[in-house]
């Protein structure tokens, strides 16, 4: 009995000292962002940085380091080369869909491995597909044949970018969309549909609410579907847009098939990587257990603090935040690992015109 009590006591003592060991007071923690200043991921990092500073033990200064050497892939490789074996959590990695996509498409430049990472915090977004009013479509399912007969043009950044999600979706629906590449980001895509050069487009939730919704209200554009949102492991209607059908729903209604099989699996993997949980704060797997714990606790504290979330939501638009070791791990797995069949499918799909 005494032994047991002593053991418990010793263990608790040990855990107390271990918890104490993680103390960042007076230190500067760096968030390594493989993108340039001012972009979406940078803004996201700068918004959550102070929140982490307030919730990490010892309240360290959190700074954002924009690494642009070799673009997103090169800068991510560099993180792994320089900090992949760190233990102290002084330099954390901030990633986004543009880092996940080349990984999924097996770009030979990629040297990072998501299985060597521990996720701390993840933010997701949705996407809304809309068309110009002159397409004459109000309900994508009812008016599908009408939509199919229109001149559909989509402005894209490239097939292996985040645009893999819309392009594969159009393919799966059998929509004859002429995909025109060379757009510099979604903003350029939006400009093109405003000018009437393209006719179908999508924007992420925050951008849609800010820039497209006013046009939908004015009657210049029509929202037709969302990519959906992850609910209990399924891609269901996006709670931000309960009136709009999600893509899997549209797929089932239009094609008559179940949303299953290699294509659906591949699309779902892309959706998780690019949207559902697109931005991660991560530590290398080598980080000490209590360091990971301290970071995960801080992440949980941010999400549970309504005041912090209010600030975050105001800056970033409506994002879904994922915390907690288990939820994060399964989300990361969905976003970064696909089965062999889907992988093969995506490799051959990538090269088709």
């Amino acid at each position, binding site marked *: 009995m005494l032994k047991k009590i002593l053991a418990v006591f010793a263990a608790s003592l040990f855990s107390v000292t271990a918890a104490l060991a993680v103390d960042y007071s007076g230190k500067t923690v760096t968030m390594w962002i493989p993108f340039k200043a*001012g972009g979406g991921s940078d803004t996201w990092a*700068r918004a959550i940085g102070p929140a982490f500073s307030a919730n990490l033990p010892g309240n360290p200064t959190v700074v954002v380091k924009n*690494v642009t*050497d*070799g673009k997103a892939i090169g800068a991510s*490789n560099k993180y792994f080369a320089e900090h992949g074996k760190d233990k102290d959590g002084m330099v954390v990695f901030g990633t986004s869909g543009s880092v996940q996509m080349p990984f999924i498409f097996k770009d030979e430049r990629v040297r990072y491995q998501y299985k060597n990472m521990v996720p701390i915090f993840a933010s997701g977004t949705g996407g809304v597909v809309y068309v110009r009013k002159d397409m004459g479509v109000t309900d994508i399912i009812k008016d599908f044949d009408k939509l199919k007969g229109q001149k559909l043009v989509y402005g894209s950044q490239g097939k292996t970018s985040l645009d893999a999600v819309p392009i594969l979706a159009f393919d799966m629906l059998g929509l004859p969309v002429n995909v025109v590449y060379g757009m510099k980001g979604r903003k350029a895509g939006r400009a093109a549909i*405003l000018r009437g*050069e393209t006719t179908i487009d999508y924007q992420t939730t925050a951008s849609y609410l800010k*820039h497209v919704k006013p046009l939908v209200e004015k009657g210049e554009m029509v929202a037709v579907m969302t990519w959906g949102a992850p609910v209990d492991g399924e891609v269901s209607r996006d709670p931000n847009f309960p009136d709009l059908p999600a893509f899997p729903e549209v797929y089932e209604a239009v094609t008559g098939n179940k949303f299953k099989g290699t294509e659906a699996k591949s699309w779902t993997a892309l959706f998780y990587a690019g949207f559902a949980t697109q931005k991660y704060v991560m530590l290398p797997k080598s980080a000490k257990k209590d360091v990971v714990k301290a970071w995960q606790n801080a992440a949980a504290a941010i999400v549970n603090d309504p005041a912090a979330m209010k600030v975050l939501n105001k800056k970033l638009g409506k994002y879904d935040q994922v915390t907690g070791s288990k939820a994060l791990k399964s989300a990361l797995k969905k976003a970064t690992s696909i089965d062999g069949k889907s992988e093969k499918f995506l490799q051959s799909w990538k090269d088709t015109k």
Partner: protein
Amino acid sequence: MFEALFAALATIVSGPSIFFLILGVLIGLVVGVIPGFGGTVGLSLLLPFVFGMEPVSGIAMMMGLLSVVATSDTFPAVLIGVPGSVSAQATVMDGFPLAKKGQAARALSAAFFSSLFGGLFGAVLLTMVIQIAKPIILAFGTGEMLMLAIFGISVVGTLTGSSIFKGLVAACLGMIIGCIGISPASSEYRLDFSTILEVQNPIVMYLGGGIHLMVVAISIFAFPEIVELLRSNKAVSEKAELEKSGWFKGLRDFLSNKFLVLRCSFIGSVIGLIPGIGGSCIDWISYSHAKTTVKNNENFGKGDIRGVIGPESSSNSKEGGALIPTLLFGIPGSGGTAILMGGLILLGVDPGITMVDTQLDLIYTIIWSLAVANIFGAIICVAMAKPISQLTTINFTILAPFLISLILFAIFNSTRSWGDLIFATFIGVIAVYMKRFDYSRVALMIGFVLSDSIETYLYQTMQFYTFSELFIRPIFLVLILVSAFSIYSGIKIINKKDKIANTKSDILNAKSRPQWVFLILLSIISIYTVFVTDHLQYLGKIFPISVGLFMFFFSLIIGIQMFMSKSGSKVFHDAENLILGNTEIRSQWLTIFWFISPLFLSVFIGFYVSIGLFVFIFLSKIARASFRFSLVSAIGVWIALAAISHFMIMDFPPGILQGYIELPWPIN
């Protein structure tokens, strides 16, 4: 409207915002002066502080910074021939020759007044059109943007040297450099040596990201100028005594060219208004406009004050224009406004369509900040113009180590990669020979800047429009006429130059072998481009292959001209002959070696240590300065770099030494 306008002015000038505005202006002035730091870098420095600020103060600070960068970047452009930021590229053309004549203060103050006017013009335009600009911006489709890019290329003719084909070869080379990286239409990696090297080789990884604008801009302009100044071992100004009353003369120059200022301000803000073309070619367009529309333009490029006034008015007026699409659609029209938008989002002000209806007061705050900051910025700059101009009377060899450190740092800051330094050196050496043999460096720069636009918009225009749709678009047609006129003026100017060159061709009696070597090198680059892009998809290869073939064709013509001509002909232009005979001249390769010696050192001991060491050795051995002065200077450079490293969260490239031993900050 007026009520809201003046209420916004009151919020700016009263309370704490005015202090933040001035703070922004001061930071902006410093950032503009340092080559390689533009509004983009300056604003990203502010971003961490903006978060959590009160919106009006935050806007005032960011706008203060953004508004004055294009004013103060004139200092290095005029004084040392290095553009302080992208928007001062064209200012170098005539500003630097003026400094050589001892008229730096005149050139600077004329530039500041033009810049001030341009800035205010942009603010007024912004106020007037913000509520009605939507259809104007939307009228510029990809077809129009393509024509704007072609118009940008067409000014090459008016700016190039005496041989049009050398200019065209240079423009093609610029476009080929612009093709490096991911292709816009097919997302393939191009010209990254992946056909020879392994994909994960650092060189291939670096080139995959494309070469950064500032790497090209600095190496192409600054490198040859500094090498040349070092060789002659003199001060920038050829006169020991600077001209008196420079300040007042600048104001007079400004006033007597008021219509030129007005026209160029208009050009700047209108092109700035259209997102997609970007600010980088506006200066060249207005420089070309100035050159073609004024009388007696023979002295352009040799120190004509109008060559400074034109681009300076437009480079600052474009900010006002670029703000319109940013605020109206959330689609930034320039690099600076792109980061501004990130900052606005952090302040909780998300620009977009509804902003004009719901937050007009904030838009007016932005406009007033722009205007007030411009006035502050111009006053400070004009006051500084004269004392700073004294720098041009100091022997350049003393200044050189500081400038070389500054330039290497600025280049490195582009993407913070070793590759920046390596490729800048490579392009710099090519630029030295381009200058010597009269291949237009401006043409290369314009080709580089517009390469991506031309390729992307050409492909997109073909996809979006049929010919009959395109030729009923009025703006498209107008732009065709404008480009045709620009090409016509170019031909006229070249013919005129031909006559002048032929009358004095005997002076340039040159050795022809180095010219042949250089020409053959250029042809090899063109052939290489064609061969290594051939395996790509049609959309990925059509542009680089066409450019490569054109470049080869133009080099062939130059070759034939050289073959057919006597050695005294103008195709054999060699600037080397103009300076030979001066016995004090240093060897070309020696000075190039000095320039890049800190890089060799860096390979072993890391960039940080090597720069200070370089300053010390250069000053004490080559400039023969006192031991004390050299030591103090080296320590000063070290402290400055450490401060920058701290505030900009920047690591300097490590050397072999750092790979073996763990060293403390900042030497690591």
